[in-house]
């Protein structure tokens, strides 16, 4: 039989199979259980309240605070500049581009740490990076930043410096009072396509 016919007999059925079968879209971004345990034990996903306050005071554009509580709780009080993505609706299509991006740091927070950590685990296993958790949540935030405890005069210099910073931050961020409940519009994020990791950059043929 002519080689051409052989070839045709092989590639046409293969092509038909490919045309019929749906494409494979599983991507191995997940952390293995061991890696995940190591990660959470080391607390690498945490942003301390001091760090966040620092970024807020400096109006650092790379920070996005995400309130994972329900809408009502968000309306009552939320951190300045935070957007509201309730945990229950986190998988909705409209939030995907906010959660899966590589431009800014998303810091989840809730009242304590349970819900924000849940949000973190969820998004991490979807393969989204750049998501973090506010250490201690709002409760800790109020204790440390909003109402910092005044160190005694015999404390080390760093303690006093930290206290001064927190006092200043709490004033800049609205003091101990409730932040205006105006629903702040979520920050404008450029439409980023789900990004594959580093592509082999081999230009020029």
């Amino acid at each position, binding site marked *: 039989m002519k080689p051409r016919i052989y*070839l045709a007999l092989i590639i*046409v059925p*293969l*092509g038909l*199979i490919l045309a019929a*079968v749906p*494409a494979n879209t599983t991507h191995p971004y997940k952390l293995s259980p061991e890696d995940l345990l190591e990660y959470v034990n080391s607390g690498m996903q945490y942003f301390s309240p001091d760090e966040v306050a620092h970024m807020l005071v400096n109006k650092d554009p790379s920070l996005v605070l995400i309130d994972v509580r329900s809408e009502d709780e968000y309306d009552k009080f939320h951190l300045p500049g935070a957007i509201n993505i309730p945990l229950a609706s986190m998988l909705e299509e409209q939030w995907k581009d906010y959660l899966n991006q590589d431009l800014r740091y998303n810091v989840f927070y809730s009242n304590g740490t349970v819900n924000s950590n849940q949000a973190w685990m969820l998004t991490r296993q979807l393969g989204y990076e750049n998501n973090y958790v506010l250490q201690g949540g709002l409760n800790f935030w109020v204790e440390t930043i909003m109402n910092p405890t005044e160190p005694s005069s015999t404390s080390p210099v760093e303690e006093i410096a930290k206290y001064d910073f927190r006092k200043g931050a709490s004033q800049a961020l609205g003091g101990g009072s409730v932040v205006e409940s105006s629903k702040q519009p979520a920050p404008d994020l450029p439409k980023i396509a789900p990004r594959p*990791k*580093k592509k082999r950059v081999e230009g020029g043929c």
Partner: protein
Amino acid sequence: MGPLIINDIISQNTNFFLAFLIGIGFGFVLESSGFSSSRKLAGVFYGYDTVVLKVFFTAAIVAMLGLLFMSLFNWIDLDMVYINPTYLWSTIIGGAIMGAGFITGGFCPGTSFCAASIGKIDALFFIGGMFIGIAIFAEAYPLLEPFFKGSFRGTPTLPQALGFKDGVVVLGIIVVALGMFWVGEWAEKKFPREEY
């Protein structure tokens, strides 16, 4: 899980060594299929020798089928594989100039190296000409740079541009290619030329 280099399964040095081996395979196949002869290469444009058509399209189809099937079995992650970016006008004009070079010189860079390594002197001159051409481009680069970097369309794939699935486009290409093979065989019978 491929590509091996991305997931750090092999080191950069192994990568270069394997590149060498892959090159050996490449050169061997090209030369043994007859791509070291400028006359055979130019034959596709006159009908008397359509080896370029057959090898080219068979290789492209085999590669497409192979990569897509490997992706189905999760042996390779196609998101990590390099896809040529599309700079519309520089590709078009560059392609046209290359076409003129092809019919004039009868070689393309890859085949010219093959031919040169088996002793074809015209291939050596072709390679020399290539270096001159690159030098001309380098000198003209400041002028050409905006054109060279313009009309960037990202890295679309043909299925994305056409709006069909990958498999459907591959099937279409297979059908078109088989048609071309049949036409090629007919042309070879109709326009035979003495070999020299």
